[in-house]
């Protein structure tokens, strides 16, 4: 079984641009969470989606948005990129909204110049 897959793995953008990151959860997992991990720090929670509905939102500006599709895959969108948005963006899936174990993807490393 494939794990959590994310794309792209690496990307470089300039300030002011927007970016779309994609995530496919483990087959059968209906919940997807997004995290931002700045170098040297722990993951910071951005969003959780379950059954296409937002179930949680972290302390991030409105420039960050996400959605979940009927096949449970998810997109994270970031508009008006800032230098500080440079980070590893991790997607994690879990079997249900309340399940404890997160399975992370390898992440998308975003560099904003």
């Amino acid at each position, binding site marked *: 079984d494939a794990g959590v897959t994310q794309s792209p793995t690496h990307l470089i953008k300039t300030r002011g641009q927007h970016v779309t990151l994609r995530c496919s959860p483990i087959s059968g997992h209906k919940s997807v969470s997004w995290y931002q991990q700045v170098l040297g*720090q722990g993951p910071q929670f951005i969003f959780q989606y379950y059954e296409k509905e937002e179930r949680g939102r972290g302390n991030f500006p409105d420039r960050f948005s996400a959605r979940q599709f009927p096949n449970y895959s998810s997109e994270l969108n970031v508009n008006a990129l800032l230098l500080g948005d440079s980070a590893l963006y991790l997607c994690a899936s879990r079997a249900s909204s309340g399940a404890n174990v997160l399975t992370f993807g390898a992440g998308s490393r975003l560099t904003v110049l």
Partner: protein
Amino acid sequence: QQPVQSPQAVILREGEDAVINCSSSKALYSVHWYRQKHGEAPVFLMILLKGGEQKGHDKISASFNEKKQQSSLYLTASQLSYSGTYFCGTASNAGNNRKLIWGLGTSLAVNP
């Protein structure tokens, strides 16, 4: 509210033991431990729920002291494969399990 992990970094020789601590200023419902190797995704190790239970997985075990709002991860007879950064994630109630608050991590290097 971010849990505090200690130590920040530790270097071991293969076969030595280590303890990593995770402390919170808030009452905790659960503590989650993950390990992340360089350039890879965090991988789940174990979860501890309030009640002070101790869990183990191979030679890695953990305890959760609800009163002290602290969890400790014990690595015994360390192996080279234990190298990586260990993160604790905490939740103050069951509803917050979906948005864990993570510590800054403890970097562990195991040398031959």
